[in-house]
């Protein structure tokens, strides 16, 4: 039953794996002229497109810093790990980066649940984390207490939800709304909730709340249902891949009302998928407008390196990189606790999407914009500068 040859193969396989494990377990000889940064992102699995886009942005920021001679005379080395789009794997990857690769700072992952899974491990090991695009308030604040080592480089859900509710009631004079969220994403759920609260507080009425799931292709059934509500606006706080399809299919079903969204929309793919015409009469909040002069340099650099325009994930990844480099510079050391202090003190830092200042809850204070889609082009509709 047990041929020698197959035993050999089995043995070799198991042996290789074990050896591989042992060697990678031993290889933590950090060179003194390097600063290791852990990039824990969704590189495979369901949301690999968001994770890898964010990583691309981060990589650009790091490359720029290294080309400019590094930070404090040291080169920054990004150590990649794959969180496989799963919370538990994110924790696993973070553990690996911290204990195995001995990284000084972690950046990522992209989605809230994965960051939450990672944050406790980082806190226990006193390694600061910058989450580029996890917008849930829970990421940095837990039961009213700020998590000392966790930061983010994007604004939080309540801000965007508030901004869009105000925009709907004030600018568009909407009295009624329907909300269509991605129930597999914390981001989408909490935005939906905030929007509802603010919209109703402003005297509006939410007629219907529906949900879809990540990777859905066909939204017509639910859209047919939403159409019956005949509301003034439709709020879809979700990511661009699904948003494109939702807008396209909604217009096909004859839903012509304004559709509102959030920063998850900010990708040229939305136009490609939905088509320029379908996107007319849609509005979403984001971090920057590409007509903004300050942002141009980032967009150009990104296009040069990757051959396509950055999306919001890439921009936020870039911002996280910028924040980090700035903090390490100011800390003047790669000691994680010193870096943590430096990030806390970030003030008026020019990053890819504008100027940011870290607030006491570890959320950056940065301006938001509302963009209108006109024939496939993002047009700046409003700019909201937050009160610090």
């Amino acid at each position, binding site marked *: 039953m047990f041929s020698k040859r197959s035993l050999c193969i089995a043995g070799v396989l198991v042996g290789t794996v074990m050896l591989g494990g042992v060697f990678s377990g031993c290889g933590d000889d950090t060179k003194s002229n390097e600063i290791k940064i852990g990039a824990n992102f969704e590189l495979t699995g369901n949301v690999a497109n968001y994770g890898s*886009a964010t990583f691309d942005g981060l990589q650009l920021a790091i490359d720029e810093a290294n080309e400019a001679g590094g930070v404090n005379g040291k080169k920054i080395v990004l150590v990649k790990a794959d969180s496989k789009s799963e919370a538990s794997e994110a924790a696993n990857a973070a553990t690996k980066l911290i204990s195995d690769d001995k990284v000084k700072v972690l950046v990522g992952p992209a989605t809230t649940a994965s960051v939450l899974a990672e944050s406790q491990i980082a806190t226990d090991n006193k390694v600061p984390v910058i989450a580029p695009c996890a917008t849930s308030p829970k990421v940095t604040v837990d039961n009213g207490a700020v998590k000392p080592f966790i930061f983010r480089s994007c604004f939080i859900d309540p801000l965007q939800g508030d901004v869009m509710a105000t925009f709907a009631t004030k600018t568009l004079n909407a009295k009624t709304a329907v909300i269509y969220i991605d129930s597999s994403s914390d981001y989408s759920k909490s935005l939906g909730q905030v929007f509802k609260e603010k919209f109703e507080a402003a005297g509006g009425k939410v007629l219907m709340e529906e949900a879809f*799931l990540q990777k859905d*292709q066909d939204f*017509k*059934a639910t859209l047919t249902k939403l159409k*019956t509500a005949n509301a003034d606006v439709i709020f879809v706080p979700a990511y661009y891949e699904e948003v494109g399809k939702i807008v396209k299919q909604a217009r*096909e079903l004859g839903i012509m009302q304004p559709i509102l969204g959030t920063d998850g929309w900010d990708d040229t793919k939305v136009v490609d998928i939905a*088509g320029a015409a379908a996107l007319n009469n849609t509005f979403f909040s984001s971090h920057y407008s590409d007509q903004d002069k300050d942002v141009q340099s980032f967009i150009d650099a990104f296009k040069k390196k990757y051959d396509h325009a950055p999306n919001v994930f890439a921009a936020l990844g870039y911002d996280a990189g910028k924040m980090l480099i700035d903090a390490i510079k100011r800390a003047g050391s790669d000691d994680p606790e010193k870096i943590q202090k430096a990030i806390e003190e970030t003030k008026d830092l020019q990053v890819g999407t504008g100027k940011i200042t870290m607030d006491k809850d570890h959320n950056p204070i940065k301006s938001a914009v509302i963009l209108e889609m006109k024939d496939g082009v993002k047009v700046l509709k409003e700019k909201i500068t937050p009160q610090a």
Partner: protein
Amino acid sequence: MDFMQQLVQQLINGISLGSIYALIALGYTMIYGIIKLINFAHGDIYMVGAYIGYFSITMAHLSIVPSLIISMVVTGLLGMLIERLAYKPLRHAPRISVLITAIGVSFFLEYTSMYFVSPTPRTFPAVFDNIAYHFGPFIINGQQMLIFGITFILMVALTYIVQRTKIGKAMRAVSFDTETAQLMGIDANRIISITFGIGSALAAAGGVLVGVYYNSIDPLMGIMPGLKAFVAAVLGGIGILPGAMVGGLILGVIEALVSGFVSSTFRDAAAFAILILVLLFKPSGIFGKNTREKV
């Protein structure tokens, strides 16, 4: 819109969604019929088909019809190659090992594609106008009708091939009793290979059409439709072509109705629940014939 109107519109939505499941399920069911393998890689073949179509359109600047044909041919050959390399050597191995191999092939296709085309979704260019037709309060758009039409035509063509042509008879013979088919002078390996080719080509057609219809393709796009198509095939009675079509349509309609009248988050659960109920009362699917081992 009142309830009836919404119901009719949901049926339209369901049938158009179901046609896509049916299209993938046709190939699934053919392949299952001939070697009784749950080809978990089928959904990924569909994905590869979509990408080949995408590159034919965007890079080679071909129009939709030649792109569709190229995609079907190339993907069909890929299917034959996969069968030859990965499944044929395991023809007499335990079935579960073949299943694991199929899962391996599925991972391989997904992640090799991801490596080469990146996980970012690609958007299919609009290759033709999508006109919405209004029938009273109901809306059907051109692409929906096109997909339904193509699925129906392919099902008819396939049924014709399987029922009437020499190669089709050989397929049925191999599927029913491989050994006796060999006694007729049929080269079973070749027939299996051809079946894989046809099944994969169908999946590719599905991939390209879905790309055109939903505009967006990505390397993991095949996982859920693949699973749904398998559910559709089992629902209709696996190995039976009209069964796959009916199963796909039923699945699509159920999903549309659940999304429209309950909640879309329960859509997949409802689809599986229906499958299980059907299997409990009719263990071999709607069109399937019950067979039990002879003692």
